[in-house]
């Protein structure tokens, strides 16, 4: 049994092979060889015949089958050389050792897969009880601390001051004081320069403070165009008045 004729009909009657290892195992067992005899020509030749026949039939073949084919060809040529020269290639290491190990492992897995399939299978022999009662999960009661910790974790991650302090922080009197101390250093400020957070409540507080300061004749409010910056300009003659 040095070779078998592989006809199209034969191919179609063959079991579907999961991969090149599967096909090799099939050929080894069909020829009543053992994995140890992998290098024997009948196995390699039959593998090639199979591949060629499948390709002639234009059946799609995974690339792994072709990779294995070239490996087997190399194996065949190197074992022929080693037989002829009576010398083991690679200093005594059998080049097929790795493949033999892979075949042995694969055979174990293939048998394990078959034995899994033989077990009583749910959704085949038995069916589980369907889902009928939907018990809505209740949410664990918690407290504000959980919210605060969540904010801390956002800050920790984003390294930003993520949530602005709340509106009541902006006291118009305090903002007036702040503007005043800024005007000690500079004569002219825009409203926006004063704002630290640029939040709406702060802008409103600054605007109100500016109006108050203007009313008290401490600053003059100037705007060059309708949508332009609003400037606060210190009135020099009233400087002492504020400091009191």
């Amino acid at each position, binding site marked *: 049994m040095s070779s078998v004729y592989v006809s199209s009909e034969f191919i179609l009657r063959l079991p579907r092979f999961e991969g090149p290892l599967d096909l090799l195992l099939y050929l080894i067992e069909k020829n009543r060889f053992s994995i140890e005899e992998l290098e024997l020509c009948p196995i390699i030749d039959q593998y090639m015949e199979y591949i060629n026949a499948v390709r002639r039939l234009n059946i799609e073949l995974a690339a792994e089958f072709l990779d294995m084919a070239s490996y087997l060809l190399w194996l065949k040529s190197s074992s022929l050389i080693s037989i002829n020269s009576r010398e083991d290639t690679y200093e005594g290491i059998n080049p097929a050792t790795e493949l033999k190990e892979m075949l042995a492992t694969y055979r174990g897995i293939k048998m394990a897969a078959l034995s899994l399939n033989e077990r009583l299978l749910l959704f085949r022999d038995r*069916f*589980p*009880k*369907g*889902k*009928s*009662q939907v*018990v809505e*999960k*209740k*949410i*664990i*009661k*918690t*407290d*504000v601390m*959980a*919210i*605060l*910790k*969540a*904010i*801390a*974790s*956002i*800050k920790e*991650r*984003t390294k*930003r001051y*993520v*949530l*602005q*302090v*709340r509106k*009541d*922080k902006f006291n118009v009197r305090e903002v007036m004081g702040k503007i005043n101390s800024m005007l000690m250093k500079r004569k002219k400020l825009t409203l926006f320069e004063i704002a630290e957070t640029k939040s709406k409540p702060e802008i409103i507080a600054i605007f109100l403070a500016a109006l108050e300061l203007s009313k008290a004749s401490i600053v003059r409010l100037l705007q060059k165009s309708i949508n332009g910056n609003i400037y606060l300009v210190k009135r020099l003659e009233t400087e002492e008045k504020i400091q009191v």
Partner: protein
Amino acid sequence: MNTINPREIIEALIFSSDGAIATKEILKIVPEISEMDVESTVNELNRIYDESGRSFMITKASGGYMFVSKETYAPYIKALVPPLKLSGASLEVLAVIAYKGPCSKQDIDMVRGVDSSSSLKTLVHHELVDVIAGRPLKYTTSKKFLEVFGLNSLSELPDLDQFEEVFGKA
């Protein structure tokens, strides 16, 4: 048990169906019986369960039949379902909505620096967050949120300045 009784086939079908099984679904699989038969079979099964003291029964629900456990056992079954603990991400989204809300998903994502889609869905599903219609949708904390967090109103949330004392960098 050698012969297969239509009664037990019906039982098996109700048993393995996800949710209620419609009568016509049963009739399709067991064509030799009538609609009336299904109803009387279910009654018969329920009588068998009652007599042998079973903890479950078949009930008619939304045009079909389904198994439910008897009410007596509800407290035990409820103990089986672990209460839901809000995830860190969900708590973060809640925190943002509580302090900044009503706000859009984009606002929330911006503050958190990550996408909040799935947390938002969870929170809406559990009714901790209400959705305000519009473009874009806006989110606000719900009454249930107050209950879960033991608050009377949002104004009871601590001022974030105070909170700096506890969590700010030393």
